[in-house]
């Protein structure tokens, strides 16, 4: 008992000292070191295109933070063209104002690998976002697509229920993009554990809404008792939902998809019943992760290409039942905020 009392007294004394101590330090060395490491640094974002919700959301949050610590933030818009993206990266590396951090949204597993290596050799940190690639980037920030696929499959199984036909249809993206390939792998992992559920068709939409509509129409035609469809992206799931609407199967087919968690694209459609479940990326948090790793890399002093970090965004399947006012972010609000400045 005596020992404990002594320890507690010591702890109290220490705590008091610790509490008082800061008054002796005139300056916190943190902000100066932070400013010195970051000021004037250049950050460039090269997404697949600037015209869709995820890229516009990332750009918004990154710009805000980078400019706040005195850096320059730029974007390039390849507009879904792989060559244009490669050109943008090449130009960026060889320009006088070479970015210190390059954030790349890779179109597939391999296209930009050589360029990213070049960038690192020139001293630029490379951060991959959203789509993984066969390249050891300094950091990957984005979804674990395999896990995301598992969440979708679990949502589909739940949406179907025990007394359903247990038939599931997939509308894949394509056979080149890692997000599509890993998503499929994740879905199949879960379905393997539920052998009573069957995938009756798995066409590709090539990320195009009209194609998604046409293949879904055929799929429903062949299997009118499908209980759930998983479309691999909310950008083309509008097509799958149109096919369901046209087949007068609203409410009978549980449509699951994934997206950036934008209000008009995801939450509004969960609300009106178009989608049954959406695995949404928490964009603000994902952008926050990017900002953190940018700040870390620029202060780390380590050369580009020497460490490899994976920062997976926490995902969950959201349904109408668990929609909250802050489940989504609002692109219109961000645009209004940017316009007001």
């Amino acid at each position, binding site marked *: 008992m005596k020992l404990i009392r002594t320890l507690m007294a010591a702890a109290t004394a220490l705590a008091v000292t610790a509490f008082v101590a800061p008054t002796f330090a005139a300056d916190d060395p943190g902000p100066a070191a932070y400013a010195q490491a970051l000021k004037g640094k250049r950050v460039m974002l090269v997404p697949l295109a600037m015209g*869709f919700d995820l890229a516009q959301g990332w750009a918004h949050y990154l710009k805000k933070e980078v400019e706040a610590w005195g850096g320059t933030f730029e974007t390039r818009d390849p507009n879904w063209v792989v060559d244009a993206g490669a050109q943008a990266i090449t130009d960026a590396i060889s320009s006088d104002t070479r970015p210190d951090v390059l954030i790349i949204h890779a179109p597939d597993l391999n296209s930009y690998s050589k360029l990213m290596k070049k960038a690192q050799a020139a001293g630029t940190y490379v951060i991959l976002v959203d789509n993984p690639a066969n390249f050891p980037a300094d950091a990957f920030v984005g979804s674990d697509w395999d896990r995301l696929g598992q969440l979708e499959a679990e949502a589909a199984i739940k949406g179907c229920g025990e007394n359903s036909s247990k038939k599931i249809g997939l509308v894949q993206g394509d056979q080149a993009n890692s997000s599509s390939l890993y998503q499929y792998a994740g879905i199949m992992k879960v379905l393997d554990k539920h052998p009573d559920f069957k995938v009756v068709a798995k066409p590709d939409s*090539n990320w195009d809404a009209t194609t998604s509509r046409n293949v879904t129409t055929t799929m429903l*035609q062949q299997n009118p008792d499908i209980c759930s469809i998983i479309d691999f992206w909310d950008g083309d799931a509008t097509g799958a939902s149109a096919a369901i609407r046209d087949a007068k199967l609203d409410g009978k087919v549980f449509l699951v998809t994934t997206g950036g968690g934008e209000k008009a694209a995801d939450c509004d459609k969960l609300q009106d019943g178009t989608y049954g479940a959406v695995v949404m990326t928490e964009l603000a948090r994902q952008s926050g992760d990017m900002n953190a790793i940018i700040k870390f890399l620029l202060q780390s002093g380590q050369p580009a290409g020497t460490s490899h970090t994976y920062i997976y965004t926490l995902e969950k399947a959201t349904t109408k039942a668990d929609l909250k006012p802050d489940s989504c972010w609002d692109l219109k609000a961000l645009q209004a905020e940017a316009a007001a400045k």
Partner: protein
Amino acid sequence: MGGWLNFRSLNQEGIVFAIAVVLFVAAAIGLPGFIDPNNLVAIVRSVSVLGILALGMAVVIIGRGIDLSAVAIMAMSVAWYLQLLNTGTPDGLAFTYVLAGVLAIGLLNGFLVAYADVPAIFVTLATGSFVFGYVRSQLITQDAVPVPQGHWVELLGGLRFLDVPIEVFVFAGLAFLFFLFLRYTKWGRYIYFAGDNPVAARNIGIPVRPMLVLRYVLSAFVALIAGLLTAASLHSINTRVVNSTLLYDIVLVAVIGGIGLSGGRGGVRNVLVGAALIGILLNAMTIIDIPLLYQNLIKAAILLGAIIVDGIINPRDEQTAQQGDI
């Protein structure tokens, strides 16, 4: 020699029609649910927008031209229209702007080809890029623009007659109008003369240049209709379609149906045959669950085959050799 003669008497349209029939019968026997009336409607519907665009393209190609701006006009005009509506522009005014814009691009295409003598392939490639770039960067804020709730475009998409979607009727109606135009009007007949031999057509007093302008305006207008139908069905328009293979699919439908790229030949029937083949093919491949990569390969192989057959059956004549086609 006799076999060769028989082959010569069979034109490309006939060959493609035969392939389509064979595919149809094979799919009807081999694929469960293919012959279901609802599936047949779905097939026609899946190629309706494509077919409408191909009608416009056909008229241009028959006049020995090509319109590579069709898909850009289709997507961007409707995207702009919806953007205007979403930002509160009155419907009538918004539609007037867009219609004027579409007709202006058609006129520009036609003027540059007819009066500035720039090859159609370059003119329309450039105007297509311009339309996409300008609208995308200046007039709309993101790739996908939604249709405002309760707007007539949304209601149009839900319209059914005897359970058949509206696109099918629009396609059929336009096909009939184009048929009447090409077959029974003076200007329609003149298109064949102008496409077959522009110089001779002008020598006999046909207004070749104004007619050329008209064809590009027609093509642009048809693209607007196709865009409205797309938005009606999907409740939004995604401008990413400009980067897709849709433009090639339109040319595919026209050429595969037997409309020679050298001009002066073909008609609405060729478009229908081409659209039927593509529709049956895509539907059957989706039912069999062939991956998209292979679907594209098969489609491309058929286009290549059609072009080779076209080259053999419709050889370059002396005039085309001298003047060049598109």
